């Protein structure tokens, strides 16, 4: 039986390794396409190519937050821990994705606009979005009891999700009343540029799925460990305040 479980675990590791390899390959192809296949942009030149990372990571982050929002509602309705695992995993993957967007933005803006940052509508609202989900993750670290943490952070997550459209609308309206630095030429996108953009988006989505799956398993294991620890503590006659490990050491 132990051997069968071991074999299954090995097989799982095998598929996981393959998935990781696949995603890495896809990211490499997307990177190659962004750097060498996509045509050069007329006015901005090479620096415009950062767009193929900036935009896909942003879109994928929104997908991650949408998953997190739906999972939080599902958790409150069902109280099944798996929804909480999914909510925290997707938020925790979404935050670094937005961070990529917030970092690549200024790298592009500095040569093109001549400034690193401006309080433009999109920049400001994305920054608020990032802060909201960082607060969500922070809140989770400050509550120890797992079920309490799941419930409380799910409610906060739902509030944050409903806040995002309001943030975008109010800041967009507020900022468009004021003159802005000229944002790079808009207009239509070269079809080859669009293809590369979609390829890059596919690659970041694959990365999102891979990270999400890993993080979800870590969270599931963490709950299991916590549950076993509590069970062991309640069974053993360890004096209060002494953990199982202390007992092993003394034995």
């Amino acid at each position, binding site marked *: 039986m132990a051997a069968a479980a071991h074999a299954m675990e090995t097989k799982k590791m095998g598929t996981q390794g393959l998935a990781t390899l696949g995603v890495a390959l896809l990211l490499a192809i997307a990177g190659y396409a962004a750097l060498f296949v996509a045509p050069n942009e007329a006015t901005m030149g090479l620096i415009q190519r950062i767009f193929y990372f900036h935009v896909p990571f942003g879109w994928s982050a929104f997908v991650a937050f949408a998953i997190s929002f739906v999972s939080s509602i599902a958790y409150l309705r069902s109280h099944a821990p798996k929804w909480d695992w999914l909510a925290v995993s997707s938020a925790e993957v979404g935050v670094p994705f937005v961070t990529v967007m917030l970092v690549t933005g200024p790298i592009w803006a500095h040569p093109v606009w001549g400034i690193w940052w401006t309080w433009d509508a999109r920049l400001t609202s994305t920054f608020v979005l990032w802060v909201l989900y960082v607060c969500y993750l922070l809140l989770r670290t400050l509550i120890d009891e797992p079920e309490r943490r799941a*419930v409380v952070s799910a*409610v*906060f997550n739902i509030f944050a999700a409903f806040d995002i459209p*309001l*943030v975008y*609308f*109010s800041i967009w309206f507020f900022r468009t009343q004021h003159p802005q630095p000229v944002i790079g030429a808009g207009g239509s996108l070269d079809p080859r540029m669009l293809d590369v953009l979609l390829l890059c988006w596919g690659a970041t989505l694959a990365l999102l799925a891979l990270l999400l799956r890993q993080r979800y398993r870590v969270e599931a294991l963490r709950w299991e460990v916590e549950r076993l620890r509590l069970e062991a503590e309640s069974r053993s006659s360890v004096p209060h305040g002494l953990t199982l490990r202390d007992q092993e050491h003394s034995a």
Partner: protein
Amino acid sequence: MALARPIGILLAKELRTEFRTRELLISTLVFVLIVLVLFSFTFDPTTVESRRFGPGLLWLALLFAGSLMLHPSFTREQSNDTLVALRMAPIEPVSILAAKILANFSFLLVAELVLLPVFAALYNLRIVPVLGRLVAVLVLGTLALSIVGTVFAAISSQARMRELLLPLLLLPLLTPALVASAEATAGLFEDPPALAAVWVGVLAAFDTIFLTVTWLFGEYLLEE
């Protein structure tokens, strides 16, 4: 309505608790006054500048005050475990939240009405011609602050570092409400005074959305 009676009784209880000590009211008043005075020291604004920055500053001060003052509404219940008693009562759990939202709303609104003439005098603003519209903006903006503030006080009361956590959770979420109420108020002090419908709309939408979310999901926060 089945909700109205328990809300009324709980609201009376909240008001009685507050008016015995007047802690929340007085500390909010003093806090906002301090911020308004400190601002004029740090920036030394001219009359025109203080008119321009005044409304935004007033709302920022109110938001900070709210994020500091609202957390006793749940921690106060914890010291004697009275929240357990409230939960055991045969009422809808959401009426506990609703009563606390209404109570905090009234405290903040009373504080604002007292502050308004002082603010007008300090920042050379003429409030009498726009009083009706100004109170309408104050009501909508304060409702936004009290809905989210009260729910987040319930959240932060269940975590560690709760005093620090409440402003961290509350302030970013209130960004749209802050933008809308500060812009609406600033419009009232322009010449001629104008109330932009879009900001009133944003505030009304904010209030409606979060009242509904609280009504749908708020009770989970009171579970044991």
